[in-house]
């Protein structure tokens, strides 16, 4: 029988080294006795140094020929890193037994139905939870300071042996102060950026801290007596932690008075508003400078309140056209997309960016054109974190034509560039045969010439092989538009 004594500080590393050696030697789990700490070691009367205790010579018996080097799944090391801090005395043996079993069935760790794996995972979970609760429920008290760094200390009683593996959390969080955490098993001192572990001492008498009273004030007042859920509280903050938390002493009283406090709120008669309420209300409701919006501003204001179709309900905002009101060219797209809806401006998303690139090549200046859409609100279906574009239907296009007509009357363009079937339908009443009519000039109802082309988002959806040809056609159309404008000027 092998006896392995593990130290109280650095237990995990020692266990790993020992387990590695034992496994390499091929020592089966039933021949190993594990224990941790000086007390246990004395009990078993084994030399304190684990290194020594591990080498086969010291134990007599027949040395087993070393097995070939073993690798373990990464998940096992993670598991062991937690389980070694559990208080269950069988933890080391159980870990080694699983390690032994992993030699023959590599996938065992993934088998969540296996009782051995299940037991260790449960232990790891218990340790993980205890560690988490320690990061949550340690309460420091102020010890003042002698040097530039402030000093704090806490007494904490964890369920498992977790001070050592949890100390890095406190090192990272409280880097600019010195602190000590005392537990019944071990003490940690963090001084000038270095952690030192020392044997446990009796619970120290920490000085009173005035901040605790403020904290209790906060705890008392953040509690909503109308929502009493004592079980939910206790599930997350078990009673065993309460005795070291300054706020916990308030809990019985808060629970006892909750119902009467909630009832008092419900039964209180409404009061008269304070005098300042009327004054402030009057100031807020006073109309600002009574300026009636004109031109494009009036159109924007009207558009913001548009309820002609239900598309406004899901959109962020309507997207009005933009550009000079004396622009010779009006460019009409389909509807705002995801980005346009957020920004409140037309053609700023991917399709707009593609348009800008091709327009620059075609010599068409966007800043000299009035750019707008046939439909002013974004129509979409939500899919998780995305919004899927949906083409507007005939009714929506018809309702929104009212706004497009207003923009057209305001700008009075010499030419309209209709991009895509929706713009085509809105301007000519007929959306069919877009690709056949592409590059042609038709007339809007008021006679304004309409040059027909595809929508740039169509180009974005094409497979790479077809894209260059289509993009060239689009560029040709934009060039034609630029030519018509230049000729008329």
């Amino acid at each position: 029988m092998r006896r392995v004594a593990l130290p109280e500080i650095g237990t995990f590393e020692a266990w790993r080294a020992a387990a590695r050696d034992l496994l390499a030697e091929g020592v089966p789990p039933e021949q190993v006795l594990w224990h941790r700490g000086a007390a246990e070691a004395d009990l078993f009367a084994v030399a304190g140094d684990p290194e020594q205790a591990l080498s086969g010579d010291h134990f007599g018996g027949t040395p087993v020929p070393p097995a070939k080097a073993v690798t373990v799944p990464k998940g096992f090391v993670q598991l062991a890193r937690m389980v070694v801090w559990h208080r269950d005395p069988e933890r080391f043996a159980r870990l080694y037994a699983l390690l032994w079993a992993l030699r023959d069935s590599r996938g065992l760790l993934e088998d969540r139905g296996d009782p051995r794996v299940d037991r260790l995972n449960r232990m790891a979970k218990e340790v993980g939870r205890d560690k988490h609760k320690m990061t949550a429920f340690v309460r420091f008290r102020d010890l003042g300071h002698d040097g530039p760094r402030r000093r704090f200390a806490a007494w904490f009683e964890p369920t498992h042996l977790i001070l050592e593996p949890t100390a890095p959390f406190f090192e990272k969080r409280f880097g600019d102060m010195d602190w000590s955490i005392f537990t019944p098993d071990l003490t940690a001192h963090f001084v000038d950026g270095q952690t030192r572990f020392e044997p446990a001492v009796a619970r120290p008498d920490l000085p009173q801290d005035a901040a605790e009273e403020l904290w209790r004030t906060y705890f008392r007042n953040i509690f909503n007596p109308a929502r009493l859920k004592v079980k939910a509280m206790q599930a997350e903050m078990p009673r065993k932690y309460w005795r070291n938390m300054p706020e916990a002493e308030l809990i019985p009283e808060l629970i006892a008075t909750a119902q009467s406090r909630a009832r008092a709120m419900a039964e209180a008669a409404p009061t008269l508003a304070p005098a300042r309420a009327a004054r402030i209300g009057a100031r807020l409701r006073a109309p600002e400078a009574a300026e009636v919006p004109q031109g494009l501003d009036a159109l924007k204001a009207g558009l913001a309140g548009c309820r002609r179709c239900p598309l406004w309900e899901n959109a962020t905002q309507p997207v009005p056209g933009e550009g000079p009101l004396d622009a010779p060219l009006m460019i009409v797209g389909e509807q705002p997309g995801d980005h346009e809806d957020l920004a409140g401006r037309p053609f700023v998303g991917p399709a707009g960016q593609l348009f800008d690139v091709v327009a620059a090549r075609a010599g068409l200046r966007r800043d000299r054109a009035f750019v707008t859409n046939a439909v002013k609100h974004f129509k979409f279906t939500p899919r998780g974190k995305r919004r899927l574009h949906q083409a507007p239907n005939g009714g929506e296009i018809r309702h929104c034509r009212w706004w497009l007509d207003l923009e057209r009357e305001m700008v009075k363009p010499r030419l309209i560039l209709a991009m895509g079937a929706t713009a085509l339908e809105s301007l000519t009443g007929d959306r069919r045969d877009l690709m056949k009519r592409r590059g042609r000039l038709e007339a809007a109802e008021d006679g304004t010439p309409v040059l027909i082309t595809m929508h740039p988002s169509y180009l974005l959806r094409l497979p790479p092989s077809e894209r260059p040809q289509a993009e060239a056609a689009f560029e040709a159309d934009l060039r034609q538009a630029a030519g018509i404008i230049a000729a008329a000027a």
Partner: protein
Amino acid sequence: MGKKSLDQKLAILSDAAKYDASCASSGGQRRDSRDGKGIGSVTGSGICHAYAPDGRCISLLKILMTNFCIYDCAYCVNRVSSNVERARFSPEEVVELTLEFYRRNYIEGLFLSSGIIRSPDDTMADMVRIARLLRQEHGFRGYIHLKTIPNAAPELIEAAGLYADRLSINVELPTDKAVADYAPEKSPERIRRAMADVRLLKEARKEKSFTGKRPPRFAPAGQSTQMIVGADGAQDTTILRSSTRLYSSYRLKRVYYSAFSPIPDSSAALPLVKPPLMREHRLYQADWLLRFYGFDVEEIAAAAPTGNLDLAVDPKLAWALANRHLFPLDVNRAEREMLLRIPGVGVRSVNRILATRRHRTLRYEDLVRIGANMKQARPFLTALDWHPRALTDSADLRARFAPPPEQLQLI
């Protein structure tokens, strides 16, 4: 009126803040103070440092800068027409409270909100100043959540996002009509535009500049919002559709549902009710189904023909009961999407089922060990040694899960 002590102000301004449900400190950019030059860390997963007897997590110091407010929202404890006691912190007081609480490990950081004083810009500027003081003067690396004021200037929102981990703007109520009725000074359009701005600012800062440098991150823990449930007449399906729209439009990290809860000195316009806590709970469950279980809001709506979620059984179970023709599912063969639909089987259990399935055929006992709630799952699945037989289609299946009727109680 004498000058109030810090303790008195804290009492008033935390009492005024408690109706905001959000207290999360998760997400955020990982950072720490191991270098000894500052204080605080963000680990990525939040920590609840205490729980109040209302079962809510206390993670952040959740306070208002001031509870003076010029708005008159009927549901709000701080509305201008209320006679609650008023107070105001100085920025230095907020900073001191945050740091001293933080050093004693009481909190993960600060969640700062405010009533609107003078103007939205003035209020927002003061809040940004507090965040800047914490970050720049005191090297605070803990979590900061700022409630943004919808009408504040874009520069202020931008500055807020540089200091804060999370920004939030409350949509307050599920429909535009309800906002118009109960929060007359607030504009749903402005609130939506503010959320759109936050998403755009966040996305703009994700792209590297031409020098390959990454700009400082904007609100790394994203944005969230809150809706009050039970103050207006909106149905659960309306609420969930509204959330779906918010998640997809503004990439919100969370929509919080806050059961309308009695407040001191309530408004005559909005009579108090017992807070609909179970309804709130069901909404959160449905919200989870939407975000992590691949449910479409219309599927949940179809299983809730009254327009409200079944209070007696959870929405996943309600959906399964309404779609029994799809069950029982064979846990050894069903695809991930369908496994996620089995009541009592969560995302983690599904992952474990899939991992274990690669090695062997699952039995009933395996599912217990994996952590499935078999009491609920049993009628809806088959395993190597388990078949529910007629149980799946039994007429009283719902009654087996629903709690026995309870006598109504007065609050």
